């Protein structure tokens, strides 16, 4: 809410600039910014139209003679339909600056001299929707005579300086001028002088023609009414109107304006009804019937829910409680008798109704966050007083009570020591009591114990911690010196699994893969693409878009998107990985397990044409190398194997494998299926995905250091011819099975398949290395082992030794 300094001055002395006040309030209470209206506007004065005649060459223009407070009247041609002789109006003089850089100059309009412009409010900075209806399509006319030549902007409140409070939901007490005055006053050690509303006692009568009933006083703790008889509905005085349009409220008539004005003053919404339009002489606050119809003031119809709280008179719905008034009993120019309502409605109920019907407004905003139930009655009196002032009421009823809840101040007890302790300060009890007094709270000190009575206007306060906040913010956070917690030493750190996962990420980084972060919420298609474990999908109840509807079951779809995004931008060579969670939901469970994965994608070239290299496109074995290096960092004792598979739908059936650790699947690797690649607009792309949680369980190897071997190794080369479907892995496994304890390595150095070998066969060459860590190996020992290896290969795979 914007707090006008001119208005604030009625309660506390204002001795600082609006910038200083906004800054100080931000640091001690509520985030604020300074606002100054009318900046850059000038030469806007009050003019009095002394004569008017029609323009000879136009049927809608008039030639006005206007007294602008100078010796000679000036002539202005005006096209507004509502211009008339004798009006007091806003005149933009020659040279005047208007909003949006508009400038007024004298000139001729259809041949007639015009020395300025007569303005409407919307032309000088009041948004059109807040301009009183009578002046919305024309010039503004002052309600009373004003001194000609005086500053029109000032008279209209359009030079006001305001502090715009951006409140947090707990500080709705400052959604009224009184609350704001208390708050700003506390920061400047000034107690606001707030005058009580007073009624003309001679007019107050006991009437019994209207009753009120509240069905559920938990939802409606306070519901008070007053009748006002024989009022005159008309335009409000300018001082009230200008305060309203500066609050973004359109002045309507003296009754409606008074209700809005009181809402701004007290923060208490007030509702007005035309007494004579009520169906019954009784107001009832009840839940609506499901499907019950209600028509808003602007004639739109709402179908109500049984959760909506309504104010009704018989079958007639007057309004949704705390949210919106209706058309049925609206106060209009013809209204003679009025019923004013001041109530407290349950915040949650108001919030839900306002949301349900998309009707959030000034009143619902206040009810949602709370209102001071200690001022419900007084706010009603104040509204009555204002209507009486402007509408000369004949009779005012006593308060008609539908429900009333006693407003009890909260009592907070605290300890000076504990308060200081939590602040990390050592303030004297005198200083703390002084601050509490500055806030307008009454307090008693008894030794270390302090008992504070919180007025109902600060319903946000309940416990000692609230009091601590009040003390420290008024004392000033700037005066607080930082320290570090001084408790027992603790040893911090990552969890072992996090350390493990960092190690795996680092192994990929060091192999040149960039790390990416993708969204965990995927589309229905994406989430199925690599659901290798066929886990149950987890779906959001209310997704925002179809793109982000399901929890991911694999990191691959995100990585493929990244490859596509980059390749579409000519970043053709992409090597990326992601380390994040996937969601694995067991049948019958609501909650998915969160499993840490690490996955990568490599596409394009791993070497490019250059002055000394030729390009090389990534292939399966490049990515297998990356994975092997990563697995070497798992500290696992396990034996990792690559088991060819054609089961993974979106991978190439001839170039993919499950990765197993001692036979247990821990991930997979492969080339994307050509049709998946073309669907996703990526070049040949190889991916891998590994389950960190499973790898972490293998992380059991205890390293026992061994000296580097001191005896030479002996090597033998083995060339074989074998059926082309025999995998090299099978051969190597067999070599190791039979190679004896001195065989330490078996590397493939040659693979040939083609016209020089038997059809359906391939030729393989292996380099075997033998070593005895404790002695020099003899040729005889090696030859023996070599023979066993060869013999086994011949028997098992029918190989031909070459």
């Amino acid at each position, binding site marked *: 809410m914007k707090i006008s300094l001119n208005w604030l001055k009625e309660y506390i002395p204002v001795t600082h600039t609006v910038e200083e006040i906004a800054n100080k309030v931000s640091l001690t209470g509520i985030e604020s910014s300074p606002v100054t209206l009318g900046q850059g506007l000038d030469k806007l004065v009050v003019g009095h139209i002394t004569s008017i005649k029609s323009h000879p060459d136009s049927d809608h223009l008039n030639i006005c003679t206007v007294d602008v407070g100078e010796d000679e009247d000036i002539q202005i041609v005006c096209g507004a339909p509502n211009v008339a002789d004798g009006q007091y109006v806003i005149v933009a003089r020659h040279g005047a600056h208007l909003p949006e850089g508009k400038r007024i100059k004298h000139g001729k309009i259809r041949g007639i001299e015009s020395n300025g412009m007569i303005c409407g409010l919307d032309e000088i900075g009041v948004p059109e929707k807040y301009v009183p209806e009578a002046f919305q399509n024309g010039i503004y006319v002052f309600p009373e005579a004003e001194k000609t030549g005086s500053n029109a902007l000032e008279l209209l409140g359009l030079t006001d300086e305001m502090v715009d409070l951006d409140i947090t939901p707990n500080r709705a007490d400052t959604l009224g001028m009184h609350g704001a005055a208390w708050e700003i006053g506390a920061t400047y050690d000034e107690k606001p002088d707030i005058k009580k509303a007073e009624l003309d006692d001679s007019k107050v009568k006991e009437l019994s023609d209207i009753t009120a009933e509240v069905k559920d006083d938990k939802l409606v703790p306070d519901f008070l009414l007053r009748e006002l008889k024989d009022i005159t509905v008309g335009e409000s005085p300018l001082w009230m109107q200008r305060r309203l349009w500066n609050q973004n409220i359109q002045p309507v008539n003296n009754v409606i304006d008074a209700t809005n004005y009181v809402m701004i003053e007290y923060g208490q919404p007030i509702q007005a009804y035309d007494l004579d339009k009520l169906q019954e002489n009784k107001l009832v606050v009840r839940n609506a019937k499901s499907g019950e119809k209600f028509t808003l003031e602007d004639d739109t119809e709402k179908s109500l829910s049984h959760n909506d709280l309504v104010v009704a008179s018989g079958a007639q719905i007057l309004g949704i409680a705390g949210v919106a008034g209706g058309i049925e009993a609206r106060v209009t120019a013809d209204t003679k008798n009025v019923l004013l309502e001041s109530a407290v409605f349950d915040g949650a109920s108001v919030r839900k109704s306002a949301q349900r019907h998309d009707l959030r407004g000034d009143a619902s905003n206040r009810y949602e966050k709370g209102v001071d139930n200690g001022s419900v009655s007084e706010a009603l009196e104040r509204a009555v007083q204002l209507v009486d002032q402007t509408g000369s009421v004949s009779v005012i009823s006593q308060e008609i009570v539908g429900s009333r809840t006693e407003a009890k101040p909260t009592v907070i007890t605290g300890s000076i020591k504990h308060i200081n302790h939590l602040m990390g300060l050592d303030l004297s009890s005198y200083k703390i009591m002084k601050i509490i007094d500055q806030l307008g709270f009454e307090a008693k000190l008894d030794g270390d114990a302090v008992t504070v009575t919180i007025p109902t206007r600060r319903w946000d306060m309940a416990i000692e911690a609230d009091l601590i906040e009040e003390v420290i913010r008024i004392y000033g956070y700037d005066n607080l010196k930082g320290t570090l917690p001084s408790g027992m030493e603790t040893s911090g750190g990552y969890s072992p699994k996090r350390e493990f996962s960092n190690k795996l990420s680092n192994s990929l980084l060091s192999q040149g893969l*960039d790390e990416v972060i993708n969204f965990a919420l995927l589309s229905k298609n994406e989430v199925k693409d690599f659901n290798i474990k066929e886990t149950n999908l987890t779906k959001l109840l209310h997704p925002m878009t179809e793109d982000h509807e399901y929890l991911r079951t694999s990191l691959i779809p995100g990585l493929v998107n990244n490859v596509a995004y980059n390749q579409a931008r000519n970043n053709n060579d992409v090597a990326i990985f992601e380390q994040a969670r996937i969601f694995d939901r067991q049948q019958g469970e609501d909650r998915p397990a969160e499993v840490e994965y690490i996955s990568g994608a490599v596409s394009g070239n791993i070497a490019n044409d250059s002055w000394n290299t030729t390009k090389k496109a990534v292939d399966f074995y490049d990515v297998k190398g990356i994975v092997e290096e990563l697995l070497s960092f798992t500290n696992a004792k396990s034996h990792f194997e690559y088991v060819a598979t054609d089961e993974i739908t979106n991978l190439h059936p001839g170039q993919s494998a499950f990765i197993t650790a001692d036979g247990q699947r821990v991930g997979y690797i492969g080339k994307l299926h050509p049709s998946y690649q073309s669907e996703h607009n990526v070049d040949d792309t190889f991916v891998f995905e590994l389950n960190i949680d499973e790898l972490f369980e293998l992380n059991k190897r205890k390293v026992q250091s061994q000296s580097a071997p001191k005896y030479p190794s002996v090597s033998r080369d083995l060339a074989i011819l074998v059926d082309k479907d025999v995998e090299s892995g099978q051969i190597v496994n067999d070599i190791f099975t039979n190679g004896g304890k001195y065989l330490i390595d078996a590397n493939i150095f040659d693979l040939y398949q083609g016209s020089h070998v038997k059809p359906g066969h391939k030729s393989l060459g292996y380099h075997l290395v033998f070593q005895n860590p404790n002695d020099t190996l003899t040729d005889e020992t090696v030859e023996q082992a070599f023979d066993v290896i060869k013999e086994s290969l011949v028997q098992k795979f029918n190989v031909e030794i070459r």
Partner: protein
Amino acid sequence: MSLNDKLKDLRKNGINEAKRAERLQELNDLRVNLLGKKGPITKALRGMKDVPAEERPEIGTLANNVKKDIQLAIEEKMDELNQQMIAKKLEDEKIDVTLPAQSRTIGTRHILKQTIEDIEEFFIGLGYRVDAGHEVEEDHYNFERLNIPKDHPARDMQDTFYLTDELLMRTQTSAQEGRDMESHDFSKGPLKVVSPGVVYRRDDDDATHSHQFHQIEGLVVDKNVSMADLKGTLEALCRHVFGPNREIRFRPSYFPFTEPSVEVDISCFNCNGEGCRICKYTGWIEVLGAGLTHPNVLEMSGIDSTVYSGIAFGLGPERFAMLKYGITDIRDFYLNDVRFLEQFKGVN
């Protein structure tokens, strides 16, 4: 010609020949030819018998000197030729060092992960554990245990992705507070923990909003923690991340799970408080929210709020990185254009 003159002649010619040599082979030949057993000096010395006995020692000395001198001349020349050869070889092997390298590329850690790790490591140094928590969380921990009951208006501030009535994508890493507090054994010392991770909000993605982003929650619960401890801790953090000259300030704010609550601003690192576009001409930049753990939150975890107190803070790695590196669109973090990613190589 006397033997004496003969030897001197041989010396002169030998030295001259050595100096004229152009190849090492010539010098080797020269050495063999002149100084060898069949060489002219040896030959000349055969005429010694004709020399009177008293002159013989002198001639002998001369002959040795001649050999030495020629030897020396050959060696000098050899050195010279060797030097020339090396110089030529080096000249021949000269390369263009401006030609592009054979690249040995290390990947780049995602800038958000770098930012998070930098902050984690700062707190690990202060004795904090790192506990990542759950991305799918119960309403109970995400809201209720944080003093945000079902009808609390604060639930509007963060629209939530629910999976069921009771399960949701966590909207804040503060959701880990309840779990950390209830499982901590206070007899073993204070609870000091940071919880980094992914959080989710029902937001439309645009330049400043993302339905998925990161947070780091920090929590200390002990018998003696205060608002001053909170300020000192965050001061140290902000100086670690944004530079040693940063000042911080607290402004009152509101979070349901802390009381008092504050917003924390740092003095603008761009203009040092003078006022600029980054700090919207205020000299200060809002970086995080914090406060003393609300007594209700402590009590709900079975902690006696009259004995224990807590400090809690929550910060956004996206915001930190955006401020620090001038990133203007939050979506850049999730598009993963490698040109964007790789510019952050080695920044942390």
